[in-house]
């Protein structure tokens, strides 16, 4: 799980172009949206694309996103359970 969390942090930094942010700067238990990293709705779309592209996970219900994108750890757990690649 820790390996996946690190990989996910690196992917998030790259896809969201989080300049000057290093994986260690991201608290895997902190909120991704609002507080914490302060991501917004466009970032949510980018994360949906990332999940499908890199892990083969297609979010059918957009409402799921609210729960899945709670933190990097929650996202990593969801990916570990549902990934197809």
């Amino acid at each position, binding site marked *: 799980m820790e390996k996946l969390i690190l990989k996910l942090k690196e992917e998030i930094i790259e896809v*969201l172009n989080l*300049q*000057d942010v290093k994986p260690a700067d991201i608290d895997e238990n902190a909120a991704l949206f609002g507080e914490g990293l*302060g991501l917004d709705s*466009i970032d949510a779309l*980018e994360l949906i*694309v990332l999940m499908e*592209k890199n892990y083969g996970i297609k979010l059918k219900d957009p409402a799921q996103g609210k729960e899945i994108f709670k933190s990097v750890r929650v996202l990593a757990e969801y990916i570990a359970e549902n990934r197809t690649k």
Partner: protein
Amino acid sequence: MTNSIYINTIKQISVQQPLSDEWFDAPVQYADNYVRAIDPDYKQYFTPNEARRLGKILKRALLVSREAMKDSGVANPDAIITGTGLGCIENTEIFLDKLVREGEELLNPTHFMQSTHNTISSLVAIDAKCHNYNTTYAHKGISFECALQDAFLQMSLPPTPSTRGGVKTALVGAHDEMTPAYFTLLQKGEYLGRENQVFAGETAVAMMLSTEKTENAYCKIEAVEKVYGGLRVKPAMTDNQPDYIMVGTNGVAENDNVYFENCAKLFSNVPLLQYKNVFGESYTAPALGVYAAALCLKKGKIPDFLILDTRHKTQDTRPLRNILCYNHFENKNHTFVLLSNV
């Protein structure tokens, strides 16, 4: 009665020193046929969170616009009008590239959203929280002049009920980036990179126009005119002789000869100035021509490297009163901007 219109502030990021008039005394010279703009250190101007979604052209446009607004003391202009030949071409390329590579699936939203021409003007408005008139002109080589003419015409008119008090201040922008891939395409199309042609450059210019002159105003805009179709119609503003004509010569004979022939036809022995030798060629380069002419008027002098006809170098002691900026695009669209000192 029509209003007087002044250019109070101009800010630029180009192949010359960014956000500076330093080029006027010491222009950067290039031997290459394709030169990217000199970007300032954006970390000084944007937070990482602000900058992360902005491509090159958006950073440049936002920065020159912010600086022009700050310098002029106009935080909320009555109009934001932008000219761009190619729009956000870098983001468009990324978006199209992914579209092809990934079989039209899984496209990143950011590049798609920021790949349109009007992204630039709207981003400037969102940043300034400005809900006033906002328009983009994407008309290849005359995009800037279209934007300038829109502002000029709206500002010339006195307020009427339909104009809700009229346009008294307008932020006019001209923005174009040049990617390596697009340069290659334009080179194949013989628009850029030809033998003896000036280098291909990039443009980011923002100027604040106002009906009120500020202490540091650059110049007054006397007239803006566009003529379509090989200059068969004589522009009204050419009835009087200007002191100088700033033309868009670029080293290609068929382009430059249009200027030489038309200037000889319209005027008698008015010395010609150039600017593309300093700023390069791009669809919105004429904005840099207007900037160069405006700076000459503000300083009351013309550097030798802008003077085309060597006979006039250093010998012209007449006081500088006005400069006509004349550009054409493929000898179809001819544009004229007459500037005078203040």
